């Protein structure tokens, strides 16, 4: 399954990506599974998703929780709690 992932704010700076297209292996079908899979990339990624700081997720512009499922072509975004206004 192919998805686009966007990163914003502090997370974008930490991972040094603003966006990427990835092919997910079978079984990576939820936000939490995606976080787990990305954590395998190395120390920076592991620390990002280890729960020590809040990382919010959106699928196709809608805020979702950890158990939300991914579909082919989805736009996933990871970002810190928002601070606008």
């Amino acid at each position, binding site marked *: 399954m192919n998805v686009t992932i966007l990163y914003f704010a502090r997370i974008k700076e930490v991972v040094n990506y603003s966006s990427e297209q990835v092919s997910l292996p079978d079984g990576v079908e939820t936000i939490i599974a995606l976080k787990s899979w990305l954590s395998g990339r190395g120390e920076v990624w592991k620390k990002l998703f280890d729960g020590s700081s809040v990382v919010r997720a959106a699928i196709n*512009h809608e805020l979702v929780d950890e158990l939300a499922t991914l579909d082919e072509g989805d736009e996933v975004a990871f970002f*810190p709690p*928002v*601070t*606008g206004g």
Partner: protein
Amino acid sequence: MAHADAWHICVQAEPFEVGQELNALQQATPQAGAIVNFIGLVRDQFSPSEASNAGADNPDTGKGSLEAMQIEHYPGMTEKALNAIAQQAAARWPLLGLRLIHRIGRLEAQAPIVLVATSSLHRQAAFEACAFIMDYLKTDAPFWKKEIGPQGEHWVEARATDEQAKQQWKHAQ
């Protein structure tokens, strides 16, 4: 809702002129008896850091004068989030019109960041809807602020009180 331009939601880098925006809202809602307006401004001081984060990026965070604020957002999602918030407000209060403008990019100290103006027949609806929109914007709209000062920069921390402010609307009524 008589005039198409009574509802105006915009994300922009450009400054806005408060008087002009309020006049536009007033003219688009001639039946209005009450207009309430919120303006959020770039403060001239760094915001306090969370204890867990203090000094992580910069020993000077949490104090000192602020030069500017950089505001990032998630194009596409931002507009949807703001529209969804406005629709919730319109479903809950009898609003005649609304102006919601949020700036992005680099803003100098004391510059206006956000304007929310609500128009209604009576003041209670206008006050409550305006506060509601700000409370939801603070927790649901994908904007992120970075403060920039003479000795560095740091991302603003989300405040727990903002989440609490939003939750109160769910218990109300």
